[in-house]
């Protein structure tokens, strides 16, 4: 039984894998290239980088190709790949106030220092299916790109060209802070952040651990829980003080020149700061607004806003709604863990089921 079953099992798996590969490739269409996924499926690539916890558009696109577009599966591939990489060095904290803005808005004020930059967004698109896209040709694509380039007055209008001066875009929250409307940043060095991928963690988790878990959480999961808080199972009615999407520099301490830093490159991040209800902090006389913060790899606004709402919700001193409960939010929003456990129910459970059958038959008094 053993050997035959093993052989049978191996054959079944191998055949299943062959079938998977066939299903990914069949049809009369040309193979999808990794470059096409990187270029034309940006939001999907960004989502996978965010949930995989690895910033590399190429690897995320490759994972998507391998997974035939399934974002959970692709995020899993990327996470597993990440765990095989050696950690060389920790970067310096990324300064998002110095990022090259691609988009920057605030719902809190009509105009803000530095101005509102709409950038690229689908927020105001009419959601009407465009059937002409079914016939899009390569020539048409190249023509459209050329036309756009020609239409902008200067080269500075193209995204990814010379950056707008970072100092122009002072954080809205800094203004609120100066006026004492928002609690001042805690003084002193908070120390190194928790590293959830290398240390074992326990609840209650410190804020750096919570934000990390949210940063790689699954978009649908954090959206659902944030929605619950916004809608009624909770009290977070956020105002978006600032939402920014842009390229932030990644710098590391200079290997030889002490005290200096060297830039490795830049990454696209989405960052949201929300202002929520008035609070009175312990020991403080005057009330202030409470804040929530969310950030993730790539351009993913729904996730960043949702995680900012959850960050605020989890600060609640007496949690009563699901979104306020750290354990509930953080233990159930990791897509790789949740989908893995969900899927594991497809594994054979016939021994445990036999144990259940035994109990039920015993209680009912029937036996074979």
């Amino acid at each position, binding site marked *: 039984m053993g050997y035959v079953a093993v052989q049978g099992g191996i054959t079944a798996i191998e055949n299943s894998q062959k079938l998977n590969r066939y299903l990914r490739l069949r049809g009369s269409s040309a193979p999808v290239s990794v470059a096409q996924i990187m270029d034309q499926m940006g939001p999907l690539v960004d989502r996978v980088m965010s949930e995989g916890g690895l910033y590399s558009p190429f690897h995320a696109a490759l994972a998507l190709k391998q997974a035939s577009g399934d974002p959970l599966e692709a995020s899993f591939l990327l996470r597993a790949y990440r765990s095989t990489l050696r950690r060389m060095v920790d970067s310096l904290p990324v300064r998002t106030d110095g990022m090259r803005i691609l988009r920057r808005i605030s719902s809190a004020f009509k105009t803000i220092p530095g101005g509102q930059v709409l950038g690229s967004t689908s927020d105001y698109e009419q959601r009407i299916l465009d059937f002409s896209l079914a016939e899009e040709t390569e020539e048409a694509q190249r023509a459209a790109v050329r036309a756009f380039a020609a239409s902008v007055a200067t080269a500075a209008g193209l995204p990814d060209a010379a950056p707008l001066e970072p100092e122009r875009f002072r954080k809205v929250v800094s203004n609120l802070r100066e006026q004492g409307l928002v609690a001042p940043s805690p003084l002193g060095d908070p120390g190194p952040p928790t590293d959830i991928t290398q240390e074992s963690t326990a609840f209650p988790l410190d804020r750096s651990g919570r934000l990390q878990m949210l940063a790689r959480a699954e978009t649908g999961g954090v959206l659902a829980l944030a929605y619950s808080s916004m809608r009624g199972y909770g009290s977070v009615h956020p105002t978006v003080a600032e939402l920014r999407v842009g390229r932030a520099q990644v710098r590391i301490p200079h290997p030889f020149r002490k005290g200096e830093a060297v830039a490795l490159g830049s990454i696209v991040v989405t960052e949201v700061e929300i202002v929520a209800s008035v609070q009175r902090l312990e020991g403080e006389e005057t009330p202030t607004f409470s804040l929530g913060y969310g950030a993730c790899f790539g351009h993913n606004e729904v996730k960043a806003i949702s995680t900012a709402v959850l960050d605020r919700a989890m600060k609640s001193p007496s949690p009563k709604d699901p979104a306020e409960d750290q354990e509930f939010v953080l233990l159930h929003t990791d897509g790789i863990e949740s989908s893995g456990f969900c899927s594991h129910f497809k594994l054979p459970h016939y021994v445990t089921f036999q*144990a259940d059958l035994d109990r039920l038959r015993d209680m009912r008094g029937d036996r074979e």
Partner: protein
Amino acid sequence: MTLQDLLPARGFQYNFAFIDEGAKREVRRALLKAVALPGHQVPFASPELPIARGWGTGGLQVTMSLIGPNDVLKIIDQGCDGSVNAVNLRKLLVATTGVRTTFDSREATLMQSRHRLPEIPMTEGQIAVLQVPLPEPLRLVEPSEVETRRMHAEGDYARMWVSLYEDVVQNGSVSLSWGYPCRVNDSYIMSPSPLPRWDLHMLHQAEHLTLLGAGREKRVYAVPPHTSVRPLEFDDLPFTVENFAGLSCVRCGSTDTFLDEIYDEETGKSFRVCSDSGYCDLVREGKIRVRSAAHA
């Protein structure tokens, strides 16, 4: 034979047993602490593996941290070496270690299993590694991790016992089937992993070491040899195992093993087969003396 010979020729150059030595050391440190505190759940960082969470990553990390080139490995799922998931895990471990494998539990130095212990009791020098989905036995009565930690720290297990009391009041007996909560070393309450009741006596005062790994939940725990493991029971309602009276395995005739209920693919009729396929094979091949059987 060198380590180089054991690694796959092309593609990724993985470390021996896949995970890096630093990760292995962290797991082993956690395991040492677990062995020193029988039944106590020790947190560990549990890195991602190419196997999905919920599919044995905890057990796998324990095995990967302990395995050496001279180990003899057995992997079973539901008691069977041929189960699809066991086959898959075996593939990964053999590809990254090249160790010898066996279906005979007596030969294994390291045995990773999902949901069963072998029918032949394991001995000194053998290690059982059990895959655990939910390491927290108190989850039955309490969803919060912070609270269950406190309950273990204070030995505050009354709510667990109350749920058993209510179970008996409602159902006449404790209806918990698999993964029955046990008191280890007269101290912590532990989940034995989803083992059937049938197997629990093999954890008690065993000659072998049992290690339990939960990857997704990021905990390991242990039952050292010669440690008491007692299922929670009322003094006047003794713990019972699954009832296979009058049934026997159609392949080897055993009447004293945990039996799978099988439905014939063609006729639809039901019959019974040993869940422990390795044991069943040994009996059929006449390699071991059967303890009791329906036919000689």
